[in-house]
């Protein structure tokens, strides 16, 4: 790791490679790429100390477009590769780029294990509710009944709720953002990066070729205010056109109330507190099918953030302790062992 810190200030351009970006025109991946390139200079980390690891999928091409160290590994295994890298080189800034298929289908196991071990890395899960690269099969986040190439009569799978799954795996940081709200995306990216531990950021990403409009309801001006709930630390849960709705906890149960009929004011509402796991759980349950009457709005922002020991830090503590106890390893002593005899 370069220690020389008197760096020239980097710009997003410094993170751009000479490789042509090969996503379909209009793909949501572009916007995410841009935001990541734009926040990195602000992190103050040197280019050479940043590594992007991805699996396979449209989204997983990402590292090729980042002028940092990078590995486009194999399908589903980015988190496992990143885990080893983080153990080897805890000082590096490690980012995992993965898709809903990559991380939740084939890579589901590595994801939940990485999360429980809480390596200090950022996982950006590009959720487009479809397999993009293989041309449009349903994914574990596709809704029930989804008609895709592999499910002409509709998908039979009850989908994962990624926030709930990760919380169930004892995540220390879970958050959601979307490709089309770039300001919010930037903010959440910065928070994910600031979190020490595994940050799991799900980003709703439009695949305009195979699943166009999957998240339109949250990104479209006409419906966004009613359907998307933006979580702000210490602020009440407010949403709706003209911020006319809020959510309060009625004896522990979330309830949507109106703020414009004089019954309730913002003071009555649930105040967002990302350190409260129980509230985070409740937020993960806001996952109804938006076509259902009386459904909850979908939350965006940081659901939960908790400080817990990182696997790699604990490992280095053990390594130090071992040296403290036994002294630096002496190879000759090790080879010789305890019981020898001599033939002369």
């Amino acid at each position, binding site marked *: 790791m370069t220690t020389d810190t008197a760096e020239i200030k980097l710009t997003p351009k410094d993170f751009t490679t000479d490789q042509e970006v090969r996503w379909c025109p209009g793909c949501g991946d572009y916007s995410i790429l841009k935001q990541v390139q734009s926040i990195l200079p602000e992190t103050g980390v040197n280019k*050479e100390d940043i*590594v992007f690891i991805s699996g396979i999928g449209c989204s997983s091409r990402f590292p090729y477009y980042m002028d940092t160290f990078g*590995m486009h590994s194999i399908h589903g*295994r980015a988190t496992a590769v990143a885990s*080893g890298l983080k153990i080897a*080189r805890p000082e590096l800034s490690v980012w995992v780029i993965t898709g809903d298929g990559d991380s939740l289908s084939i890579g589901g196991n590595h994801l939940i294990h990485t999360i429980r071990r809480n390596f200090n890395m950022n996982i950006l899960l590009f959720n487009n509710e479809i397999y993009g690269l293989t041309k449009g099969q349903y994914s574990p986040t596709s809704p029930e009944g989804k008609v895709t190439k592999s499910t002409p009569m509709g998908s039979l799978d009850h989908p994962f709720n990624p926030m709930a799954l990760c919380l169930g795996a004892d995540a220390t940081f879970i958050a959601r953002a979307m490709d089309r709200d770039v300001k919010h995306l930037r903010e959440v990216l910065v928070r994910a990066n600031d979190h020490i531990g595994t940050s799991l950021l799900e980003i709703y990403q439009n695949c305009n070729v195979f699943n166009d409009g999957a998240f339109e309801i949250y990104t479209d001006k006409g419906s966004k205010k009613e359907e998307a709930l933006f979580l702000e630390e210490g602020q009440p849960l407010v949403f709706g056109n003209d911020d006319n709705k809020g959510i309060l906890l009625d004896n522990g149960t979330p309830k949507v109330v109106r703020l414009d009929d004089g019954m309730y004011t913002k003071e009555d509402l649930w105040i967002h507190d990302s350190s409260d796991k129980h509230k985070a759980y409740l937020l993960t349950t806001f996952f109804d099918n938006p076509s259902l009457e009386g459904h909850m709005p979908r939350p965006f922002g940081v659901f939960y953030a908790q400080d817990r020991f990182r696997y790699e830090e604990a490992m280095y503590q053990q390594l130090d302790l071992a040296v403290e106890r036994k002294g630096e*390893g002496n*190879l000759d002593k090790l080879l010789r062992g*305890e019981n020898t005899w*001599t033939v002369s």
Partner: protein
Amino acid sequence: MAKVVEEKRVVTIVFAGDSGDGIQLTGTQFTNTSALFGNDVSTFPNYPAEIRAPQGTVAGVSGFQLQFGSVEVYTAGDICDVLVAMNAAAFKVNLPRLKKSGTIIINTDGFNAKDLRLAGYESSPLEDKSLEDYRTISIDVTKLTAAALVDSGLGKKEVERSRNMFVLGFLYYMYNREIAPTEKFIKEKFAKAPHLIDANIKVLKAGYNFGDTSETFTSRYNVKAAKLPVGTYRNIMGNQATALGLVAASQKAGLDLFYGSYPITPASDILHELSKHKNFGVKTFQAEDEIAAVCSTIGASFGGELGVTASSGPGIALKGEAIGLAVMLELPMVVINVQRGGPSTGLPTKTEQADLMQAMYGRNGEAPMPVISASSPSDCFDAAFEACRIAIEHMTPVFFLSDGYMANGSEPWKFPTTDELKEIKVVHAKERKQDDPEFLPYKRDERLVREWALPGTKGLEHRIGGIEKEWDTGNISYNPENHERMVKVRAAKVARIADSIPLQTIDSGADSGKVLVLGWGSTYGVIKTALKECLEEGLEVSHAHLRYIEPFPKNLGEIIKKFDKVLIPEMNNGQLVKIIRDKFLVDAKGLNKIKGIPFSTPEIVLAIKELAHA
């Protein structure tokens, strides 16, 4: 009672009892003591797959076979001189291994009605005429142990657990061994339970004294120290030697060792051993599965560590896809396969050599990689070290093949000093300044090896991945010519390793002749023993043993051509033989044993003779 002392050159003992009887411990102690005394030793533990297989049954028998001698021994012995049978089932399973007129030491308490029934005996074999061919020493070990511990305050269970010490003491007397090393061991083992130290030593001594005082036999045996090459020795097991080889390589290369693994028999002991050496900067990572194990290792290699992953056959199967990635990435990595009986779950605790083809071809596409094999417990050290050296110096994943027999077997090891070990040269790509030429991650040197470019090095930012890469730049390339060129260069890079490895030598026999016995892996000892016998009989036979299977040493073809016939003994259904026939178009013959147990010397001798006379 004073006993006559008879001299013996070699002795083979098999300790056998129930899985709960501490047989492995007893065998190991006798081995270590004999080794410390200066004998050459070779061992073969053989235990059931179950943690505690049903007590008293044939399936539950645990065995530990040991050959020790005043001459060099290369196998754990074919036929046993002594059988120690703690119960009827152990007796039943192992009697066929005992030579006629051999000695049976019997714990009579293990032959009661229930024991006999569990072992499937209708009547007690001890009262059988068939025992007339053997010398039987019957001891009620349970009773004598209990007697020794009558004042110890120990419960019945604890008393029973120390029975093995009685037997061990008895054998120490019989073979004229010191009990001091075992006393020391007991003190360390039970450091936290002093009452058990006393008890175990008491029983050990009781066994020794029983040998001295009882009238059950009249001669003691003496097996002099072996004339091993001059030097300092220790006893070592294969998995332990492998672990030490990895640590040594990491130290010589100046890299930290990263070991990503998922437990599996018989590879787990490498993980256990390595996890004790954190003060060497060894990082062991027990991953959630084999795929995460190999992928985390790739991540660590990318980060600049000596990445090693290990498993046994089924786990290696799971790693295939990621190993292919490592081939593409051209990063150093060692993949260890401690082979066991297959296919599928197979015979998890038994040995086999049936994963060679998997090592060679168990990946999609053209994904060549070096394959290195060890040939005995202590040789695991050298082979593991060499696998690391090749991985690092040639920037490639390397397969290292061990097997259950050598992994769990042990032998004296004339361990090296740090200085005696080969150097391992690590070449890292250098930091690039503004005006330096662009860094080309896939630029190769004359050995076709690319540079290792570590994250954290200024100016080396680059991307690698599993899609075909452009020559020099490493960018993604779908260019047809480029693909062919890259496939060929990856193959050539592995082939060129032949330039840096030793030529093949003949282990015993002349440089040319009638039959070449070509072996690999843990069959080394038994082939060597068989050769000795054949050569003494004047047969024109030679033995060459492969460490390098991919690439072969450059002169292998020449060597083979100097013999009329080639015999390839393998503990599989014929794998190396396929490669040899393909490469050299010689009508090499396989000798195959697929029983989960090693060859015996006569089996090899017979095959040699048959081929020589065919």
